[in-house]
């Protein structure tokens, strides 16, 4: 028997003109946790789908337990002992825990009639594999994400799984739940099961994995033991760039703060938050999901509530009642989910860019000046090098990074004092990420006050000259300059 459970060499896959996987080599050892890491769109999920039999590879060899596998189908993958736990967990929220656990094996056994006793037995057997206890008759949809995940793991174990692939399992979990999940993962690993853990979070990968395979643009750029890798190397492999060069250096900070927040409170969301912001600064606000960081931004933009405390803009105390009011007061906000909140995907690029400044582009009767709209939007297309040949095309034709540029230019069209960016590079590819960062640095140095809200610590560290850390709705730490490091932030969050 070979040292590896699964060994893949020279895997190649193209979708039309896109080279999704470029001769990827990949191997998993039994009883080890292997992390498949990489930025969004690097080919991770394509590779997983080839292993699970959803896609067929164009080229390359696959060895499972030393035996070559020619053609993998989903059924074949299950038979071999490969189980994928997808990000959405593939559960049925309307069925009971028992049914969720038993249904897959019942289908595989090609049963026609339901036998409750057998289902219950199967479900109990599944739960006993990791010693997990839960009401079998509870409705799946009523469980927490962490519980759903454990049920999904138990279900995978029913198939005598030798390799369990977990696709970004920690995305919707709290830190505590992540710890519990890792405990289960280690338990499985110690029982000899190979775990393939897909993630792009540095901390997690170093905590849980034995081996790591890093992918970038469809190629694997590193594979080997995690212990032999430093975090700096890791980031380099992930992004393909030395990030040090791009640290933000403020050159143009004003004396007087443009925005001052005093004891701001939204009951139940955040409380007693005070900070100030000067022109030319990039202020980072970070914290875990549910720490109140997004709610704080919403309140500054008139979308959230303010129960007590004050907001002062340019020395004048103000109340921000709505997004329109916020724009009048020269505050801009780029939301977290740019696709649903910030863009009209089925509308032309030009219209999207000019959306929040249409008032300046209308005739007396309120009809639009189309030529001027197009001209002005073309200026932005050039300035931000948005990758399109025609601004009449729909925004949906662009990549994530270019879409983010549209959202940014939409706001910069209006003269702003304060720009709030929430998760500005979520789902954006590496190149565009760097472009957006450089752009934000320029804007700040031209005199704009910027707030970046992000849980991507690397992003906060690189781009901010000051960082506020939030936890449970309150500010628990603030750091500036050299004191801003991922470790320092993590120490406060934990």
């Amino acid at each position, binding site marked *: 028997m070979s040292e590896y459970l699964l060994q893949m060499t020279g895997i190649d896959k193209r979708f039309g003109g896109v080279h999704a996987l470029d001769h990827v080599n990949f191997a998993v050892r039994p009883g080890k946790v292997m992390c498949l890491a990489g930025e969004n769109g690097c080919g991770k999920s394509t590779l997983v789908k080839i292993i699970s039999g959803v896609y067929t590879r164009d080229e390359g060899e696959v060895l499972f337990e030393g035996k070559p596998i020619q053609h993998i189908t989903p059924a074949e993958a299950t038979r071999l002992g490969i189980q994928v736990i997808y990000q*959405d967990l593939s*559960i*049925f*929220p*309307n069925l009971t825990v028992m049914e969720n656990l038993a*249904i*897959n094996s019942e289908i595989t056994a090609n049963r026609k*009639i*339901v036998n409750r006793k057998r289902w219950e037995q199967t479900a109990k057997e599944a739960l006993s594999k990791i010693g997990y206890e839960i009401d079998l*008759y509870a409705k799946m949809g009523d469980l927490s994400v962490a519980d759903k995940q454990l049920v999904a793991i138990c279900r995978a174990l029913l198939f005598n799984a030798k390799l369990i692939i977990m696709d970004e399992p920690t995305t919707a979990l709290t830190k505590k739940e992540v710890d519990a999940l890792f405990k289960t993962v280690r338990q499985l690993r110690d029982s000899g099961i190979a775990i393939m853990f897909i993630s792009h979070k540095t901390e997690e990968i170093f905590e849980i994995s034995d081996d790591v395979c890093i992918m970038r643009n469809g190629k694997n750029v590193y594979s080997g033991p995690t212990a032999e890798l430093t975090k700096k190397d890791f980031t380099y492999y992930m992004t393909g760039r030395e990030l040090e060069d791009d640290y933000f250096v403020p050159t143009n900070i004003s004396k007087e703060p443009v925005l001052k927040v005093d004891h701001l409170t939204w009951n139940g969301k955040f409380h007693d938050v005070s900070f100030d912001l000067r022109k030319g600064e990039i202020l980072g606000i970070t914290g875990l999901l549910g720490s109140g960081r997004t709610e704080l931004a919403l309140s500054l933009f008139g979308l959230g509530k303010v129960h007590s405390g004050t907001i002062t803009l340019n020395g004048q105390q103000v109340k921000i009642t709505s997004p329109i009011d916020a724009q009048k007061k020269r505050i801009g906000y780029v939301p977290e989910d740019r696709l649903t909140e910030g863009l009209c995907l089925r509308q032309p690029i030009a219209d999207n860019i000019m959306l929040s400044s249409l008032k300046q582009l209308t005739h007396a009767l309120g009809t639009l000046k189309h030529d001027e709209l197009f001209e002005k939007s073309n200026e932005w297309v050039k300035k931000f090098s948005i990758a399109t040949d025609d601004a009449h095309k729909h925004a949906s034709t662009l990549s994530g990074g270019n879409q983010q540029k549209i959202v940014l230019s939409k706001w910069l069209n209006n003269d702003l004092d304060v720009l709030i960016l929430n998760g500005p590079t979520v789902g954006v590819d590496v190149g565009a990420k760097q472009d957006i960062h450089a752009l934000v640095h320029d804007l700040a140095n031209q005199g704009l006050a910027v707030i970046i809200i992000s849980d991507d610590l690397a992003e906060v560290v690189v781009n901010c000259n000051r960082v506020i850390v939030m936890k449970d709705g309150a500010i628990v730490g603030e750091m500036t300059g050299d004191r801003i490091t991922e470790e320092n932030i993590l120490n406060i969050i934990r």
Partner: protein
Amino acid sequence: MNNAKLKRMTRKTEFYMFIVLILLCVLVQIKSSGQLITFPGIFTRLNVTVLRTMVVDGMFAMCSLVVMISGGFDLSFPAIAALAYSLSTTICLNNGWCATNPLAGFALAVAIGWVLGMLNGWIISNFKLNTMIVTLGTQTFFTGISMGLLKLKEITSTLPDGMKAFGKLYIFESADPVTGIRFTLSAMVLFLIALCAIVSFMLNKTMFGRALYAIGGNEVSAERAGYNVKKTKFLLYSAVGALAGFIGMIRVCMESQSIPKAMIGKEMTIIPAVILGGASIYGGEGTVFGTVVAVGIISLVSNSMLILGIDTYWQQFFNGLVILVGVTVSALQAKRQKQ
């Protein structure tokens, strides 16, 4: 019964619908001074009328229920029923069939319904289209075939004798104590009971039934779990088509007439009833019991309005209210589940 079981039961819509039905029965019983149920002879003129109304509506509701559980909407089953029964009675009449028994008529109606259902199933499973839009299209298409292409006529007094006789079969007969007019409990109620039993067994005890719930809950997961979603949907819609043909023929026999236009708009009273009975508009939820209870409530109300001294125009008002309440509750439950 332990506590957890009781708690789960009280969270279900059908539990409350059942209580509403009981309360309504009590109300009607009191208001009509005992006309709903008499002792010892349980059947009365009023309750056999309610049951009679429930036969066709209840059976149609089963069609709608299974489709809704799978996460779809079928707007075309009344149009399928209408085309199937109008065409098959016309054929029977022209050939002199069904003089003694309606078997040929039923066989034809089921076959026609099946073919039409297969068309639905083929379009929906192959092209992965929104079921509501597809069946809205086929509904109009089928109505167009029967009205325009085939120009099917109303058949009333000339309906084959075998069909008429079959529709008049009864399992209970009595006379109204006040007026002395004879009334009967139609034997067609047995078909409703049998269908409910079959559908209930199918949904709860067969893997096909669980597949419908699984697909309605999460189609992608159902596919990953190993269900053949395409095949299941095709089978579902073709079976519903065949069943609709059968139900249509039952209605022809019961009413002793075949009217091509009689089914137009029927889906708009059936679907709300199914939703009221606890089926989710997003799929994955619904029971035979809840559906029957909801159909019972609607039949009871519409048949006892006169007795309760309510103008029958209020029926529209009541139906509208049912749609709003049913859909709102369904949507709120789905929202709660998402959180």
